[in-house]
């Protein structure tokens, strides 16, 4: 099997991740639920991971690193903290449903700062035009469909200048691009643990630089006589038992990234993406969404063909043991912006563990599929 769906979940992880998960499950209980050894081992594991992430993402205090079950969970907290019913929220034209659905659920009024694919100057300009009446802005760092790296520093600076709090969805950026919470001065940055950070499913992270409102209420192991959530982080946003084994795995995933450097990992993924593009480009009537500037795209590639639907292509590749994703990728707004809403796209996303041999094999399989039509 060749797995090229890393933008959904990075299935191959460093070996240390699995070991850490097993060790946590065998030895650790729940932080804040006692001072016995298994509880304190769990508490140490969670704090160590918080400190690691706070340092890696320049969060300041480790208490401002919140563990969630996913990026979606993290985005829900961030949006619920800043947005009230009727608020005007500016979003990019590349947002995931994990941004648009919570905003719709809160009855926010959405203004889309729409700009063409791989056009960062126009993206900044679009935000500039929309921010005047905004109560909040939400922007993805990287499009999950096209791997397009949005000019998040410039958008963040604009938001700061206009006094508009910014939520950054770093789901496709974390692990391959630098993220500096305090440097960007974003209100929140949300990310999953199971994609670029190489942790297990069921982990997510919210970096906080703003006042918060919980979306989940319950036990925290602190202030238990009160029926209100604590007013301090991280407890305020972490009701219920932590996913300790997941957090233990996430710690090792992030340690791996730091040891290799995110730039090295991104360069590797880009090379694979470029190799794949070069190999499949001769296929007639194939539309490949690629930036002229390689710095503007991660290791994610979308394509489509009038001869074969993206779903059919994914199914045929799947039969050949090659795993990709097709359709809308939970981001209809990105497809609307790029003009691919009707067709969807077939998405190939590469990881630090994919090889050039795998890419050649996948490209050959695709060429064979189209040659046999």
């Amino acid at each position: 099997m060749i797995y090229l769906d890393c933008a959904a979940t990075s299935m191959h992880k460093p070996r240390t991740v699995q070991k850490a998960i097993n060790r946590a499950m065998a030895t650790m209980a729940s932080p804040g639920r006692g001072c016995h050894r298994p509880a304190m081992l769990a508490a140490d594991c969670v704090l160590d991971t918080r400190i690691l992430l706070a340092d890696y993402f320049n969060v300041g205090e480790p208490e401002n690193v919140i563990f969630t079950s996913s990026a979606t969970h993290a985005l829900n907290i961030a949006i619920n903290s800043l947005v009230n019913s009727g608020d005007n929220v500016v979003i990019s034209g590349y947002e995931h449903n994990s941004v648009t659905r919570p905003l719709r659920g809160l009855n926010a009024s959405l203004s889309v700062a729409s700009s063409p694919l791989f056009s960062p100057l126009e993206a900044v300009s679009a935000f500039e035009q929309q921010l005047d009446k905004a109560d909040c802005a939400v922007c993805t760092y990287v499009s999950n469909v096209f791997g397009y790296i949005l000019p998040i520093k410039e958008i963040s600076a604009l938001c700061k200048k206009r006094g508009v709090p910014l939520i950054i969805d770093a789901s496709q950026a974390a692990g391959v691009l630098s993220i500096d919470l305090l440097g960007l001065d974003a209100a929140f940055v949300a990310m999953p643990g199971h994609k670029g950070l190489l942790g297990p499913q069921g982990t997510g992270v919210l970096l906080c630089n703003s006042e918060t409102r919980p979306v989940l209420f319950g036990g925290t192991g602190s202030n238990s006589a009160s029926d209100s959530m604590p007013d301090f982080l991280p407890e305020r946003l972490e009701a219920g038992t932590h996913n300790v084994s997941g957090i233990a795995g996430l710690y090792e995933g992030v340690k791996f990234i730091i040891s290799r450097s995110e730039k090295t990992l991104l360069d590797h993924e880009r090379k694979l993406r470029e190799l794949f593009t070069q190999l499949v480009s001769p296929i007639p009537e194939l539309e490949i969404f690629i930036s002229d500037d390689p710095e503007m795209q991660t290791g994610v590639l979308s394509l489509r063909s009038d001869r074969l639907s993206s779903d059919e292509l994914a199914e045929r590749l799947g039969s050949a043991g090659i795993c990709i994703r097709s359709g809308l990728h939970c981001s209809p707004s990105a497809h609307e912006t790029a003009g691919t809403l009707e067709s969807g796209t077939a998405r190939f996303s590469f990881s630090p563990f994919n090889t050039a041999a795998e890419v050649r094999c996948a490209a050959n399989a695709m060429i064979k599929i189209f040659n046999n039509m």
Partner: protein
Amino acid sequence: MLKYLLMCRSLTYAQRASRALEHAGITAVITKAPKSASGVGCGYCVKISESKLSLALNVLRQEGLGPTRIFVMAHDGSVSEVNS
């Protein structure tokens, strides 16, 4: 020997306080706060020996981890608040 209990606002702070104190050579054990000390239920504190109180408070203030309250624990386990 008397012990001092340095109340922390949360387990995370208690862990960070304990680590900072241990780093400074002060033995600091995380314990659940006695009910009479926590007030709001399920609080955490770090327990240190009597002779280390002054040094411990200096370390914690430097780290921005100052305790919310300080209690002295008598031999019989009873606690009473002291002024910091």
